[in-house]
């Protein structure tokens, strides 16, 4: 999903009240074992072929536990059964507001109307995402508040509100108390509440010591995904305050934490926004900015130089992508920490104004203690983070940054980074099967010339000689567990609209969580289909897990 920048995605915060049709379930999972799939899709030879291909890849590869997802179409199939959604009773309706048909459509994967799809790509105005708290005037009595599709709450074990995605926390005291009552009622019975289903709404609970996190959603995301999002939300809070904030509750159970999080609304809202566009939030892997090997090595070697001198972690990032990352001996940086750290820095405007030195906690590294982060922006997208355990290292880190900056300028790393950003990530159309033609198609910032073809021309190339293009592979994500990294292709035709991109994102999310479902899985291979991409197309994302 590399082509989606945080500001141009179709978020679940759309202002417009859109009509939500009672849409059919889009994704019809046909997972399970190989034989089950044959039974389910026995009339479809293409699927079988596809499956064998996947399996043979798995066997021939010696790499363990790597996952790749692909998204292919099957043009020859026109009609498929469309299972209808099981229920239409809405949370909003049950809460006594108006009919369930006009929810605030903020997580709009559910629009199956093909005609609308064509308008989405150009409706730029509605796709602009603004960070920070919105709808602060709402509370649980507001009709609009009740209709929002995805709520997040953080509250204390005494029921005091700490954070709410929508509405003013203080006005939501009664609602928070209700959530707290549910949790403690179940806890008093010696049990724990994880999930409550109410119509098409899911209420997911996560208890972290004295901190309770709750998500109320009707987005049809799997429970595991929503729980993972609550974990990240908690991690973001730890990053700002460390886990020792729990001690404040030991001293005073009625402690009011909202003031401690003052000014961080933008950090949380941008994280929640990333749940609907950034695959790193569910893959637990980071992605790198594509660069020529020599360019990345130039960056890595200077970071390596400074890492020896009291710097624990040195990260050079471009937006949410890693350019280079170096850690001191024996220390390792968890991908979730990279996600939370880059989200924190990018959503806090003050880092852009000048260099800064701030306490920051990495929840996966050590949730109890602060590290000190020196942050400096080289340009509007590219920034350096130097993390240290020493609170008086500022002037040393400033010197390190000056050294790093001069090396990056002298070896043109910063200009290459800008070029890579403009060129975008990997394009399916460039993935040609013929090894001879592949070289020519690699992006220019990777050191090789790209033939001067326009976008349609390139697509035609792919159609003829490659695996991409309208008749072939449309999109993929590949995640390497060994590297903690993932790579994905840019969205290309026909996945043009933000709506389609979001639906694909959600499909990957579902696929990932079902593949890691301990109850019924894990599965090596599975197929899903989504028949909402066009009258004459049927899509099969293929997931493959090798182990």
């Amino acid at each position, binding site marked *: 999903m590399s082509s989606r920048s945080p500001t141009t995605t179709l978020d679940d915060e759309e202002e417009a009240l859109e009509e939500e049709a009672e849409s059919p379930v889009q994704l019809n999972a046909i997972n399970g074992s190989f034989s089950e799939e044959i039974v389910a899709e026995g009339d479809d030879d293409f699927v079988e072929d596809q499956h064998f291909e996947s399996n043979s890849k798995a066997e021939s590869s010696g790499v363990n536990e790597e996952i790749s997802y692909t998204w292919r179409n099957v043009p020859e199939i026109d009609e498929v059964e469309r299972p209808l959604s099981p229920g239409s009773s809405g949370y909003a309706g049950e809460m006594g507001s108006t009919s369930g048909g006009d929810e605030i459509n903020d997580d709009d994967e559910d629009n199956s109307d093909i005609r609308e799809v064509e308008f989405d790509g150009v409706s730029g105005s509605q796709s602009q995402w603004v960070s920070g708290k919105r709808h602060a005037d709402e509370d649980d009595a507001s009709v609009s508040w009740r209709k929002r599709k995805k709520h997040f709450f953080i509250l204390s074990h005494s029921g005091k509100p700490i954070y709410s995605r929508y509405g003013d926390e203080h006005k939501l005291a009664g609602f928070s108390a209700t959530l707290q009552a549910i949790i403690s009622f179940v806890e008093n019975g010696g049990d724990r509440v994880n999930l409550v289903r109410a119509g098409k709404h899911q209420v997911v609970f996560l208890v972290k010591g004295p901190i309770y996190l709750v998500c109320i959603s009707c987005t049809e995301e799997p429970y595991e995904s929503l729980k993972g999002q609550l974990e990240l939300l908690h991690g973001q809070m730890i990053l700002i305050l460390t886990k020792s904030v729990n001690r404040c509750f030991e001293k005073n159970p009625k402690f009011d934490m909202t003031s*401690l999080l003052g000014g961080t609304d933008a950090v949380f809202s941008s994280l929640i926004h990333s749940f609907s566009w950034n695959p790193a939030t569910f893959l637990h892997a980071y992605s790198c900015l594509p660069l020529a090997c020599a360019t990345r090595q130039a960056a890595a070697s200077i970071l390596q130089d400074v890492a020896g001198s009291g710097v624990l972690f040195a990260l050079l990032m471009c937006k949410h992508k890693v350019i280079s990352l170096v850690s001191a001996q024996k220390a390792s940086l968890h991908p979730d920490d990279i996600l939370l750290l880059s989200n924190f820095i990018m959503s806090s405007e*003050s880092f852009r104004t000048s260099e800064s*030195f701030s306490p920051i906690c990495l929840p996966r590294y050590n949730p109890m203690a602060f590290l000190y982060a020196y942050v400096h922006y080289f340009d509007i997208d590219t920034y350096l983070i130097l993390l240290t355990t020493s609170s008086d290292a500022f*002037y040393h880190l400033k010197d390190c940054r000056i050294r790093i900056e001069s090396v990056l300028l002298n070896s043109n790393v910063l200009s290459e980074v800008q070029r890579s950003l403009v060129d975008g990530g990997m394009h399916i159309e460039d993935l040609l099967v013929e090894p001879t033609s592949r070289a020519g198609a690699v992006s220019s910032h990777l050191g090789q010339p790209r033939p001067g073809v326009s976008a349609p021309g390139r697509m035609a190339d792919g159609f003829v000689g490659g695996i991409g293009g309208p008749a072939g592979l449309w999109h993929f994500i590949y995640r390497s567990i060994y590297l903690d990294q993932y790579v994905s292709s840019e969205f290309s035709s026909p996945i043009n609209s933000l709506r389609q991109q979001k639906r694909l994102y959600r499909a990957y999310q579902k696929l990932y969580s079902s593949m890691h479902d301990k109850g019924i899985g894990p599965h090596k291979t599975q197929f899903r289909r989504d028949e909402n991409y066009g009258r004459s197309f049927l899509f099969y994302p293929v997931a493959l897990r090798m182990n």
Partner: protein
Amino acid sequence: MGCSSSVPDRSAGRLGGVNPDNGGANDPKNLRVKLVLLGDSGVGKSCIVLRFVRGQFDPTSKVTIGASFLSQTIALQDSTTVKFEIWDTAGQERYAALAPLYYRGAAVAIIAYDITSPESFHKAQYWVKELQKHGSPDIVMALVGNKADLNEQREVQTQDGIDYAEKNGMFFIETSAKTADNINQLFEEIAKRLPRPTPPS
């Protein structure tokens, strides 16, 4: 204050903090001073600094995280130059316990409040007491009432500021980062009040 327990103990007792490596201030003609800005969140500390350093004013509020570092050099009439190394600290409660990290070793402290907010004036007094207890003994302190352009909404009288500053041996001024009123004067006045190192005989 807030979540004081979240500060690792190991850093609290350490001397030095984020100080320049060398004194640097030995040259009486080219002074280099560490300046820290303290005050409640939203009083305009970053706006004061950005007005002074870059001549800019951005009305959209940008919450400072931890502390930002900026520097600016001014020339005085007696041909001395003063390089201010400014720590613009975050006003949020969670950073209060970490303030010593930034004010330790500071030669100058600007304590700012918002003239439309008595609460921020109260907070300023907290910072003055904190610095009297834990700051450098010879620290130069300035009390600054910011947002002077919002005179119609004033809730802290100028006289209250003057009185409090006088009682505590501070320099007092009202500024407006928005209109640039008194911003340069503030830093020039601080520069004049700096203790000069005695030139080597």
